[in-house]
């Protein structure tokens, strides 16, 4: 499996999969799990990253999500985007089926 964060990663977010259907979710600033990456809380620096991950671990999330982990994100102007191809694909859906995954939902909404 590809590495989630490089050693010198500055910005990170926490992601997991939802228990009921495996949907990719992100930990938000108010400790909810959102389906879209822009809603993710972003940690700046290693210590903030650890603190963010710690917020994802409490036992009560066990009922909602699986295997939360930190991954690296990059600043892109006023926004952030996942750094690795893996996380870009998780945030959007399969690149070979643009009609499926979050990218398809986004299309429908627009």
């Amino acid at each position: 499996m590809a590495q989630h964060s490089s050693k010198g990663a500055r910005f990170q977010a926490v992601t997991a999969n939802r228990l009921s259907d495996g949907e990719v979710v992100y930990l938000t600033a108010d400790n909810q799990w959102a389906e879209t990456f822009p809603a993710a809380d972003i940690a700046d620096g290693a210590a903030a990253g650890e603190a963010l991950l710690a917020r994802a671990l409490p036992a009560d999330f066990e009922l909602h999500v699986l295997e939360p982990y930190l991954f690296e994100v990059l600043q892109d102007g006023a926004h952030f985007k996942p750094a690795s191809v893996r996380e870009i694909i998780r945030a959007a859906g399969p690149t070979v089926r643009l009609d499926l995954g979050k990218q398809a939902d986004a299309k429908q909404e627009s």
Partner: protein
Amino acid sequence: MYRYDEFDHQLVGERVTQFRGQVERRVSGELSEDAFKPLRLMNGVYLQLHAYMLRVAIPYGTLSSKQLRMQAHIARKYDRGYGHFTTRQNIQFNWPALDKIPDLLEELATVEMHAIQTSGNCIRNVTADQYAGAIDNEVEDPRIISEIIRQWSTFHPEFTYLPRKFKIAVTGHDNDRAAIKLHDIGIVIKQNELGDIGYEIHVGGGQGRTPFIAKKMADFVPKAQLLAYLEAVMRVYNRLGRRDNSYKARIKIMVHETGEEEMRRLIEAEFAKIDASQMLSVPQAEADRISAYFANPAFAALPATSAAMETAQKQDADFARWVRANIVPHKQDGYAIVNISLKPIGGVPGDATDVQMEAVADLAERYSFDEIRVTHEQNLVLPHVRLDDLKTVYDELQAHELATANLGLISDTIACPGLDYCNLANARSIPLAQEISERFADLDRQYDIGELKIKISGCINACGHHHVGHIGILGVDKKGTEFYQISLGGSADENASIGTITGRAFTEETIVDAIETVVTTYKDMRQDGERFIDTYRRVGLDPFKERLYA
């Protein structure tokens, strides 16, 4: 086709009920994920990148029309309208919701199918030659012994917690289409001078991080002793296989570290311990019952050639090309083996929609004695089609975009799901397969290149069999970016070989050009009648390397 008996029905039914309870307890919080994960894996449920994935076993790659229709129904009702046929002759669904999977499994059980033995450290679903019972010069239909092994291995208490997963493949033919030398145990059915049937046993093949070709452990195990012999192999492995390091736990590592001779001695010693009077064998009546399920269908007595087919070939050049590429001679005069390519130009290797599955099921019902096969190269087969019906079958297939005439050619690529779906992936596989097939889309160009097997894996687990591709491609990750390593000279047939890595990896932008360079190098160097693999074996890696890294 094999039909469940009362024990099979009971066993599968109980397993579904049990899993339903486990899912309910997980959702209610009674079971932790740590406790639940091994249970869901035992039922073929994986967590992938975007969703859960369910892997359904297709024993020895054989399906009835009813069973294939059920896959279409599942794709429609529980998934997103398609399924993915894998290199283990199974089918995977990419999007089922966890709480619906027990219902899905219950429906699956109504057509005598399940997801048991598709995951975990057990003896996995047995695979076999897809042309079983249809190809000429077969010693015996490999599905008979595959079914016996399936029954013997399912929930065998001794083999439920092996050091690692364990894969068995069987062929009854000299031309190996089941990649038996790349399995933990590969079985070749043989007949001796006395006319008795027995088994040549190969042990310790496999791909993944450390690929090995299996070593021949026995030339001829008599029919009555096969299960006892397999039991001896499993016992040696269960006792001595490494459990401390999952990378070293497969039997291939044990064979490699122990040495071929010593391994043979250990197996024979274990086999000798199995007292002749206690030897596990299948009662004749049961063996006959199972064999009867795989007896020849009621073939008609037909001439060896078909005027209708010949006329159609003259009138329709595309049909003629399809016959040339995708049709294999049948053992019975007047019949043919039809290969259905799931590799349309620019398509996803191994994917089929619900509508396509239903179309194939209808064709099988009408024209192929109700049988479909799944190949480890991710295609489908109608094993027994009359030559007179070929044009009708072709027209139907074409109407469903299933008539690509590229079997065994450069666009008939094996590709694992890769980083588009798989949680373990380093890089994407499918887009490469698509780009390669588009680059070489011209069928005449493909025929000119000839047999060339490209196999692509998205990580070193090698589900896409890259080690044994004539051209193998392995996706690697460098700091979150995809790169692709090429290997050349692999082969999965009776002359199995592991490919050699050419050198440094290529970027996503340059990999398809690199493949074209390899193909051009071959074409420049080939001698009369040589296939890619022949030329490679004659000239070796260097000429290819020189051009690739010039």
